[in-house]
């Protein structure tokens, strides 16, 4: 019974780890940072603010690109959230697998 449990846990751990890698790779394709709107006297201007190494960069966002960037940031946030979920799952699975292996070693 224990070996079946360990095999299920290992299989699940492998799946979670693989998915985590795939998500991280996906994340790279999305823009980093946050959208900031600044008042420039008579009009508002949008910028994408992000960190590159030690520097904080500010890129101008054209009006026509605004919606698209908003959507991309929303997708990125969603993926980042899912990575967190997978990391928690990974921790739990590793813990369960360790406990299961210890039980076998004690016998």
């Amino acid at each position: 019974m224990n070996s079946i449990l360990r095999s299920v846990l290992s299989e699940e751990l492998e799946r979670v780890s693989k998915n985590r890698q795939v998500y991280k790779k996906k994340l790279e394709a999305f823009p980093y940072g946050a959208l900031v709107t600044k008042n420039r006297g008579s009009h508002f201007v949008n910028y994408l603010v992000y960190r590159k190494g030690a520097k904080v960069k500010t890129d101008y966002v054209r009006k026509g690109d605004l919606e698209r960037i908003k959507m991309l940031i929303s997708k990125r946030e969603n993926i980042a959230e899912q990575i967190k979920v997978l990391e928690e799952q990974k921790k739990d699975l590793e813990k369960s697998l360790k406990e299961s292996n210890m039980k076998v070693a004690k016998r």
Partner: protein
Amino acid sequence: MIQNFKEVLEILDKTGGNKYVVLIGSWAEYLYEECNVISGFISNIKTKDIDFLIENINKPRNEIDIIKAFREHNFEIEMAANEIYRIIKGDFEVEFLAAMIGGVYSYIKVPAFKLPHVEALTHIDMLLIDPVEINYSDIEIRVPNPYIYILHKMVINKRRKEKKEKDARAIANLLIHLDNIADEDRLMYYYNKLSKKEKRLIVEYVTDNNLVGYFPRLK
């Protein structure tokens, strides 16, 4: 587990029943991965239930004795008080489902499969829109198209109780792999085919779960 799944498909294939059902649930996700329906997709954990949605309770015209076929392959057959058969092997269970007709009866007779009752569910008929036909281990089987599969999970999410979170993870996992403009178009194409109520439930789900990035044209 996979062996049991293959055996179930083989039994259906032998009876010809595979042509009249659509495989739904987590095993459909498994086939999205295994048969590369969604490139790079890794499915969530598979459950011990294999669910099939019966497309038309009166087809095929030549009845298939599905219970007899499973019994011949040493599946345990039990009948619950509501006259729904349970088809079991070890801790594996095969279930047949159908669409609710008229929103009244939660069980329905399936003459084509000689089943006195199967569970009938609302909104499940969505999964019959443009199913994908795939070949798995030389067996032809249909699975819901992934876009409809996602939308259906969103529609039923509120009634899923303890399965809510698992479903939410499945939706997120699928959407992450279907994130280009062509996929957005397909999602909208199938969204537009749905009823007002289904559309409202999807909008609620998308808003509550911050998934607007995948549905930029949703109103």
